[in-house]
């Protein structure tokens, strides 16, 4: 949502002259770029537990972050007050990066970005990708409570084994104003609504739990009957299998990744290694692979900030760069890293709009948005049928990757054995481990069912950022499955 410029200037009690004055202060020691990031965020939550919405609250976070760049080096400070004295003090602290003790990077003072696109993107900066029809901040709590009550009732009625339901409705609305030393002024309002449901089931003395979530950049209008029905259905879906699931025998075997949420593996095991800061510092396994073939020609990987209402959508990133769709791997060839302004200057390319930050307290760094693999040709059933003995997984949690080595481990919440081309016994509580580049190179079949998962995915990289992920059904030739 984008209001008038005056709304944001008034909110932060600044004038355009103030912004220019702060720029001068920030660059007084010779910094070659500076930006200001004003933020006013209201986070609210309501919690249903033991059948009642008896807990709730909100949090207000307000301030301005001031960044000064000298080459690739960063000075950063922030103020929780936007009075002139406080902001000038923060500007002076950030400006110190450019004093005599910090030598400039190899790029020097050139600020203008080179325009040598190395990817096929569809920049669309003019679109408002998250119009908020009803603002969370002005919605009465009494209007939100029935949605949580409905989830509780629906889930409890659907399955007699349900013993506990916890449902949380969270919203975040952020007013932003950004200004930089190029004279670019950007402002907007970003909504984010999330619902998380956790259910505990009990059967014959055994306990199982299941969680489901949905999140969108939207206002209160996202709380539809259809969403409630979907959450209820998913919360109890396949719980029989969960009770019957076992750990399979471990070992190396083919792994079929189900469409949608399996995309978290793409995010963790490959996506982070495409972030330009890790490559700039020589830490990524892909540091020297730009323009080279890294996987099968059937594979195209995209990081996309342009999906309307998506949790990772951005009209522009936190450096004021228009949100974009960035093709990272095209037909198996590594075509672009994800860039913020610093890495784009280093690599002498255009920024890709991936400069993101958790809040005004953090300097922006390259981060993913919605990262997904595009669909291929194979039918999902055909992919499963091609496996004589292996494992099918469709829900992961707690993945981790070592950026340098590329090694990853993912915890499988649910899946099935594949025996003679058919899904058979359910499995749970196992890990799959492998190496990101090797796994990418080992993808043999790509399904025609690409799906983006709308769960509450949050990426942690020193600071959190809402993202989403997706993948079609894919077959990986061989991964290690940790079982009995």
């Amino acid at each position: 949502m984008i209001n008038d410029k005056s709304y944001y200037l008034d909110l932060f009690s600044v004038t355009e002259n103030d912004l220019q004055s702060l720029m001068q202060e920030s660059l007084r020691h010779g910094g070659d770029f500076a930006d200001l990031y004003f933020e006013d965020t209201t986070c609210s939550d309501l919690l249903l537990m033991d059948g009642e919405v008896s807990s709730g609250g909100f949090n207000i976070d307000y301030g301005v972050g001031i960044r000064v760049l000298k080459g690739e080096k960063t000075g950063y400070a922030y103020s929780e007050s936007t009075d002139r004295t406080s902001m000038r003090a923060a500007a002076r602290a950030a400006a110190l990066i450019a004093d005599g003790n910090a030598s400039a990077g190899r790029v020097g003072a050139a600020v203008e970005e080179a325009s040598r696109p190395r990817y096929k993107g569809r920049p669309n900066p003019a679109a408002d990708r998250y119009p908020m029809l009803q603002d969370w901040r002005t919605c009465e709590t009494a209007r939100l409570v029935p949605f949580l009550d409905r989830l509780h009732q629906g889930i409890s009625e659907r399955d007699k084994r349900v013993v506990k339901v916890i449902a949380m409705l969270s919203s975040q609305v952020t007013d932003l104003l950004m200004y930089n030393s190029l004279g670019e002024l950007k402002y907007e309002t970003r909504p984010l609504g999330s619902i998380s449901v956790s259910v505990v089931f009990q059967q014959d003395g055994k306990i199982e739990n299941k969680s489901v979530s949905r999140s969108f950049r939207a206002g209160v209008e996202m709380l539809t009957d259809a969403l409630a029905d979907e959450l209820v259905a998913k919360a109890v879906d396949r719980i029989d299998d969960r009770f019957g699931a076992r750990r399979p025998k471990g070992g190396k075997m083919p792994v079929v990744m189900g469409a949608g949420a399996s995309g978290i593996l793409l995010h963790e095991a490959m996506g982070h290694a495409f972030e330009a800061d890790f490559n700039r510092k020589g830490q990524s396994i892909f540091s020297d692979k730009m323009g080279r073939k890294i996987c099968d020609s059937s594979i195209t990987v995209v990081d996309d900030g342009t999906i309307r209402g998506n949790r990772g959508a951005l009209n522009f990133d936190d450096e004021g760069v228009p949100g974009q769709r960035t093709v990272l791997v095209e037909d198996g060839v590594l075509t672009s890293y994800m860039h913020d302004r610093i890495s784009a200057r280093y690599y002498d390319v255009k920024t890709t709009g991936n400069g993101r930050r958790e809040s005004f307290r953090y300097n922006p760094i390259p981060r993913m948005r919605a990262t997904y693999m595009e669909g291929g040709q194979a039918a999902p059933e055909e992919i499963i049928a091609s496996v004589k003995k292996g494992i099918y997984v469709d829900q992961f949690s707690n993945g981790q990757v070592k950026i340098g080595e590329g090694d990853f481990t993912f915890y499988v919440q649910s899946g099935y054995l594949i025996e003679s081309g058919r899904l058979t016994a359910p499995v749970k509580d196992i890990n799959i481990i492998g190496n990101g580049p090797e796994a990418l190179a080992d993808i043999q079949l790509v399904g025609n069912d690409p799906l983006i998962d709308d769960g509450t995915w949050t990426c942690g990289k020193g600071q959190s950022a809402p993202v989403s992920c997706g993948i079609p059904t894919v077959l990986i030739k061989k991964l290690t499955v940790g079982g009995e």
Partner: protein
Amino acid sequence: MTSPELLTREERELTLKCMEMALAKGAQKVRVTASKSVMDLVGTLNGEIDKVTHCLDRSLSVCLFVDGRFGSFATNRFDEEGLDAFLDRGISVTRMLAPDPFRDLPDPERTAKDALTGTELNLYDDYYERMTPELRRRLALDASLFGKRNGEEWTLISEEAEYTDSVFETFLADSQGLRCRHIETSFEYGVEVTLEDKKGNKYSKYWWDGTPMLKDLDINACCPKAIDLAVEMLHPKRHRSVHTHMVIDTEVASKVVSPILRALNAYSLQQNNSFLLDSLDKQVFPEGLTILDCSRNAGESGSRYFDSEGVATRPTAIIEKGTVRQYFVNTYMAGKMGIAPTVEDAIRPKVMPFPRHGLGRDEILSLCGEGILVTGFNGGNSNAATGNFSYGIEGFAFKDGRITHSIRDMVVTGSFLDLWSHLVACGEDARLCQARLVPTLAFSDVDFSA
């Protein structure tokens, strides 16, 4: 010596004023917590300054108990006019929630009476007041080893480090007369190095140190240690699946202790989402396991005189010779579950030595003879309800008490109750900078997949 003050007198007075305003607006009980911190960071990349950051944070959290209902709210805007609107809205939201008879402030008898100046735990280093931007830069730059150390088989291709110092103060008050303060300084240095071998393989390792007192910060040991750890990882081999001893290095051993502490928390127990249901005063672990909560150890970062409700902490046994002695129960959960309240969480848990004092990693490897030494966990998870776990690991194979080679692509799988029933040893080598004092641990009969 005068007491250090990060929160100004005006800010503390405004905190109390906020409480009075909330009571005047219709709240029957109120708890307010003001926090303030200042943090300075100098980041280096490959021996050069890469980032300088200066942060000042304030927050005011308010818990409102209104007409049998409860809401919690926070803001970082400290002006009185803003607080007026903030409280109006908070009370309005709280009134829309369902009544909950179990929400209450803690019994005043249980609250801390001895956290008056905030310095009682000796966690404030007045040298902090002499820190300057130049001194911070010098500390960060002098600690770097980039360009000064390479090996025959490897090159140091990246060294990314951060020196940080900070001061933090919290002031907690409630409408029953509670007043508590805590202030502490922190000095930290952490470094991640990436080595490349002759084949282009990369190996990254991290090492850090942290302490409330600058004089205790072993900053110059961090880069050498991180490099040594990365060098140890060269030439990894894929190991076969094996059923053997597992020794977990103290740096990562809290991975198998934290799930126990979570399972003993009343929120997990009340939601039936715990593998330690109905375990209080029962022996569910082997006699060799004793975990104490050393919550009031002076000079140790993480020690606290009070929890977030203002309840007084006390040194206590969480698990004593295998018997569960404590659930973590706040005032709310005590009411819901009909049990006695304790503290809301473990403050500074410490796993005690077994079978004897003084064991370090090397002695424990000798004790076990053969097995897998785990020095890092890479992903994986545990099931809170069943206690089943599966974690990716990195580390080393060892034989005859000596490390033979580094390993990768391995997973350890089991259940916590079964794992702990095979406890062999608990060392006495936890570093004080760790939030949880978990030493090197050893278990027998553990399943590793590869």
